[in-house]
């Protein structure tokens, strides 16, 4: 019978230690029957070495041995942790109490007394082996346990560390999740919220604790833009879904979100969770809606106005047109449209100009506007108004041009018709007036003729009464005549057909002339007319005829509105604060003009109050004409008066100055002022011409003839200066050298000889030329400087008296 606990365990290993061989043998025999593995040792030392090699399960140890005795062996064994648990049965011959105590203390587990009883031996061995086995088992077990505990503890520690790490990561991620503005929601397959980040809290107004566990779609009252089943099907099939959804927050606000769902599966591929990320696009949606509406409105507006919008991509040379564009051009829509298709519709004569304008706009990176004609398929011509501008890319290069086109054919036609009707009306008015004047003047001629004839006595002597009556008729005829003249004058003024010829003119002469003309009328009325003109008054820059006309109108009024025995005076002087302006005053001591009428004095058809005499008022156009004439000559007119003390009419006329005359004639300042000559053309009369008017006519003819000799950009004919009735002089500033100037002089001579009717008019012609000494500063070639240089040169060359139009009194 094997005493081992587990039949599978090997037989127990017993070591017998006795110095006596017989004893050893005896024990061995006794134990063999039990199938133990027996080992023997002769001495304590041998026992120790054998034990060191292989520790037995039991030691039978003799006490009395030479050398190391049993006790010592036992002590040693007990000190060694490896061997301290090996049971030792001390075999001793001694049976006294003390020796047993020693053995016990040495570590023996039991005793056996020699001679050893077989049955006792076996029982004790068996028991101790059994104990040992239990002990060993227990040891083994607790060792394993200990190892297990250590391992488990280590494992646990590892797991904890990992867990901590993962938790940290999770915390980070959770923080990030919360940082995210987007609403990140995790839901399970029953749509219940598992995770709800800060973004979701903010967006939907539910705290995480409130949201978790609830059906997310119910919580948010969600509407998708497609069916939810469809979305979820997509999710299941593809693992994700993207779309837009409308959610409602806790407080009911609607949010439009761009939502993305991702499906999470476990290790077996079973869907367990859905991660959804919502991005709030409500604002963008609103802006989009706004923009959409604006675009719609714009389209509607442009379509209603028939304004087409186009875009030209320069790189591909293609056009993008809206529907209105195709409509305007009558082309079938194609997108994009090649540029050539458009240019083919433009009228060939306009195309070059348009393309040049476009090129220019691109070059200056600006905008442009043009009008051009297009020819539709049916051959009709439409007028297009185009406005466009360039579009720059980020580098500031022109990549596109955008613009609008409008069909303005109707408007253009209307404009042209209007212009035409305006012209027609003007012509009609002209013709009408001319007809009217003709019709009015013819009977007037006859009346005047016969009145004159009667008055002159050709048809017989008149009685004083008859004379008187004829005078009345004649005066009325004259009045009628002047009224018609005024009417026509005003018409001319209004239609802008009245032109003035500004020349250097003597105020003194004009005034004297006017007074002469009205002398008779003044005498008849008993009004005394005086005049006062400063002696060295410079020449005026005015139209001679018009100046005279103004003076006559004003003086005539003065005489008309002054009572018998009254006074009228004409004065001329330099303006006190401006030496470039002349003041002319016509005053009377008549009834004056009431203050409330002054404002409308110069309006058309102003009628004065009832005059002191029965004389008629005329058409009331005189002052209006004066105002217009004053303006045409660069002056003004006004009335200065003291009521009850008569009226003074004042008008201004510019003083003649060569500077202001030259400046407008010189268009640009790039002429060679260094080579300027003065050409003097002198026409001397052999005798005085009978009529001032005739002389003026002839002077004008001579002037136009001269002008025909000149080269427009190089020669300047100075305006007419004062002539003394015998000699007429013209001055030409010729921008040419000596040779050029003599060519000009010859040309003038030959022209006058051929066309000037010199023999008929009794004029002699002399043409001279001299170079002008002009110092030109090459560093200052501005227009002003050149003008000043030219003027000073001319002033030097031309007799200053003549140039400034100094008056020679008769």
């Amino acid at each position: 019978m094997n005493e081992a606990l587990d039949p599978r365990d090997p037989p127990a290993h017993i070591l017998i230690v006795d110095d006596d061989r017989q004893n050893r043998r005896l024990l061995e025999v006794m134990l063999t029957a039990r199938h133990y593995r027996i080992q023997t040792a002769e001495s304590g030392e041998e026992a120790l070495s054998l034990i060191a090699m292989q520790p037995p399960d039991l030691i039978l140890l003799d006490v009395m041995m030479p050398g190391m005795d049993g006790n010592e062996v036992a002590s040693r064994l007990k000190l060694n942790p490896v061997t301290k648990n090996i049971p030792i049965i001390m075999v001793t011959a001694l049976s006294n109490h003390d020796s047993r105590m020693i053995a016990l203390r040495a570590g023996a587990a039991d005793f056996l007394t020699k001679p050893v009883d077989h049955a006792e031996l076996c029982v004790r061995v068996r028991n101790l082996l059994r104990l040992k086995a239990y002990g060993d088992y227990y040891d083994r077990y607790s060792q394993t346990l200990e190892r297990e505990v250590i391992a488990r503890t280590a494992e646990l520690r590892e797991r904890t560390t990992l867990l901590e790490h993962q938790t940290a990561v999770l915390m980070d991620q959770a923080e990030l999740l919360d940082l995210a503005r987007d609403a990140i929601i995790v839901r399970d397959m029953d749509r219940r919220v598992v995770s709800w980040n800060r973004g979701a809290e903010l967006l939907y107004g539910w705290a995480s604790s409130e949201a978790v566990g609830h059906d997310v779609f119910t919580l948010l009252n969600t509407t998708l833009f497609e069916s939810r089943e469809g979305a979820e099907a997509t999710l299941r099939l593809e693992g994700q879904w993207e779309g837009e959804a409308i959610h409602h927050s806790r407080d009911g606000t609607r949010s439009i979100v761009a939502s993305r769902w991702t499906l999470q599966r476990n290790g077996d591929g079973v869907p367990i969770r859905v991660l959804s990320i919502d991005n709030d696009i409500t604002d963008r949606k609103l802006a989009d809606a706004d923009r959409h509406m604006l675009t719609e409105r714009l389209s509607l507006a442009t379509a209603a106005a028939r304004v087409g919008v186009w875009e030209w991509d320069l790189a591909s040379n293609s056009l993008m047109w809206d529907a209105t564009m195709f409509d305007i051009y009558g082309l079938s829509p194609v997108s994009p449209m090649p540029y050539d298709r458009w240019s083919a519709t433009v009228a060939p004569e306009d195309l070059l100009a348009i393309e040049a304008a476009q090129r220019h706009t691109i070059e200056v990176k600006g905008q442009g506007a043009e009008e051009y004609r297009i020819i539709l398929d049916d051959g009709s011509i439409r007028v297009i108004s185009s406005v466009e501008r360039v579009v720059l890319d980020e580098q500031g290069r022109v990549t596109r041009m955008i613009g609008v086109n409008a069909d303005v054919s109707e408007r253009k036609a209307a404009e042209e018709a209007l212009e035409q009707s305006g012209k027609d009306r003007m012509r009609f008015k002209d013709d009408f007036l001319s007809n009217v004047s003709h019709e009015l003047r013819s009977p007037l001629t006859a009346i005047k003729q016969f009145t004159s004839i009667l008055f002159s006595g050709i048809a017989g002597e008149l009685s004083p009464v008859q004379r008187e009556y004829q005078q009345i008729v004649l005066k009325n005829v004259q009045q009628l005549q002047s009224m018609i003249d005024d009417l026509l004058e005003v018409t001319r003024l209004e239609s802008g057909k009245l032109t003035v010829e500004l020349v250097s003119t003597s105020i003194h002469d004009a005034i004297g002339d006017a007074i002469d003309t009205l002398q008779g009328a003044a005498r008849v009325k008993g009004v005394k007319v005086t005049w006062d003109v400063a002696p060295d008054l410079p020449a005026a820059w005015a139209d001679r005829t018009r100046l005279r006309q103004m003076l006559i109108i004003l003086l005539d009024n003065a005489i008309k509105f002054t009572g018998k025995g009254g006074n009228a005076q004409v004065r001329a002087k330099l303006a006190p604060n401006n030496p470039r302006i002349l003041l002319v005053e016509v005053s009377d001591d008549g009834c004056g003009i009431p203050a409330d009428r002054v404002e409308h004095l110069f309006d058309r058809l102003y009628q004065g109050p009832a005059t002191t005499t029965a004389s008629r008022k005329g058409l009331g156009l005189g002052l209006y004409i004066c105002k217009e004439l004053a303006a045409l000559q660069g002056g003004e007119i006004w009335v200065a008066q003291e009521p009850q003390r008569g009226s003074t009419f004042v008008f201004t006329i510019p003083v003649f100055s060569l500077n202001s005359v030259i400046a407008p004639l010189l268009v640009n300042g790039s002429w060679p002022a260094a080579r300027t000559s003065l050409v003097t053309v002198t026409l001397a009369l052999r005798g005085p011409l009978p009529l001032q008017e005739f002389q003026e006519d002839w002077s004008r003819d001579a002037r136009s003839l001269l002008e025909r000799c000149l080269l427009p950009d190089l020669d300047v004919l100075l305006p007419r200066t004062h002539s003394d009735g015998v000699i007429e002089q013209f001055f030409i500033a010729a921008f040419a050298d000596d040779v050029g100037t003599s060519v000009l002089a010859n040309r003038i001579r030959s022209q006058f000889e051929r066309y000037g009717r010199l023999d008929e008019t009794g004029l002699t012609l002399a043409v001279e030329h001299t170079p002008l000494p002009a110092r030109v500063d090459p560093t200052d070639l501005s227009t002003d400087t050149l003008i000043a240089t030219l003027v000073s040169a001319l002033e030097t060359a031309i007799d200053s008296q003549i140039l400034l139009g100094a008056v020679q009194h008769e």
Partner: protein
Amino acid sequence: MSNKKILVVEDDSDVRLGYHVLLKAHGYDTYFATNSTSAVSEARKHLPDLIILDLGLPAGDGFLVLDRYRANTFLAVVPVIVVSARDLHGNKERALSGGAQAYVQKPFDDDNLLALIREQLGEPQYAGVGTA
């Protein structure tokens, strides 16, 4: 010395009479034409010393008559005083460049006209006539 001959081309009968009375009183023989055709034929017939031509002839061809005068060898040297009731811009220039010697606006001052006539005929002016 025979009187100088003046041809007056004028379509208005009253005005014609007025011319006649005035001119006759001043010692001129007067002849008349009332339209453009007779203007030329009468001129050629009488070869006047002066022609007074009203531009306002019927059919408005006063300038045409002027041209025809200038084109005619004998009539070209005859001085022409053009008279016009119309006030159209450029009429005067056109008349003068068309060969007329003088241009007078209707209704005219008879003293003025007489002075013009005398001048054109090379006759001395009376003292006191004409402006200074």
